């Protein structure tokens, strides 16, 4: 399958996951909210639910990697300083802004939430500028 077709198929699975979480547990499937809630204790009585969600989120791709004839590689940069900086920004930014690609992007836009749409425009815009600057000054990605 071509990239756009696997992208669309994978996207539908992500949307089904979010739909199931909403209709079943009445919650927004936002990765940063679920992880962050465990980090700062705001998950409260939903702690176990969050841990189980995250365990399956790691476990299923691990299983697919083992079964697949074409396992994927993240291709993450080897520059660990950059990785730490990016991790800090992603962690703090998603909690300050109340969401990430799944919460604001998928769950927010699909209910036409103004906050979700504005947040998505902000992080995509900032990402586009960052990648352009990386290209200009760091000689590529």
């Amino acid at each position, binding site marked *: 399958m071509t*990239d756009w077709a*696997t992208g*669309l*198929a*994978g*996207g539908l*699975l992500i*949307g089904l*996951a*979010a739909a*199931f979480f*909403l*209709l*079943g*547990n009445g919650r927004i499937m936002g*990765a940063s909210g679920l*992880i962050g809630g465990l*980090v700062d204790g705001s998950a409260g009585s939903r702690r176990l639910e969050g841990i189980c*969600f995250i*365990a*399956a989120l790691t*476990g299923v*791709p*691990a299983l697919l990697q083992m079964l697949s004839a074409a396992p*994927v590689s*993240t*291709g*993450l940069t080897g520059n*660990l300083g*950059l*990785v730490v900086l*990016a*991790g*800090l*920004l*992603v*962690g*703090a930014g*998603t*909690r*300050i*802004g*109340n969401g*990430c*690609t799944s919460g604001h992007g998928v*769950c927010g836009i*699909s*209910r036409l*939430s103004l*906050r979700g749409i*504005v*947040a998505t425009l*902000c*992080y*995509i815009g*900032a*990402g586009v500028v*960052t*990648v*352009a600057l990386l290209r200009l000054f760091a000689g590529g990605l």
Partner: protein
Amino acid sequence: MRILIAVISGGLFGAGLWLSGMTETGKVQGFLDVAGAWDPTLMFVMGGAIIPMAVAWRLTRGRTPLAGGSYPPSPPPEIDRALITGSVMFGIGWGLVGLCPGPAIASLSYGGTGGLVFLAAMLAGMWTAPGLRRRLDSRTGLA
């Protein structure tokens, strides 16, 4: 029941991220690289994910969740400084290496040392966020 639903959702989410290529940082940075060799895959992923969710939001009307409780309230319409600042910070980090929270967790088993370092830094960032946010709110007089 709640736990079973969480496991199924988390598993489907992981399968979707893996299949769509969103745990591959090159595809994410390629989407953001509008001036270079632009890769539209992320747009298809997001579009594909929004379709079932738009249907799901319609199905919530006049109902309650299967496992009981209530649906999340409508989001407040206000666009505050925290939303903008946080999302811009997130976008910079996302652009720098091509990882966001979902894929960072989904690729943990095959992301190597770099993936673990990213996760540790992301958790540290999340840990500091409530304090940073309080500062931001008090500086702008929102607290």
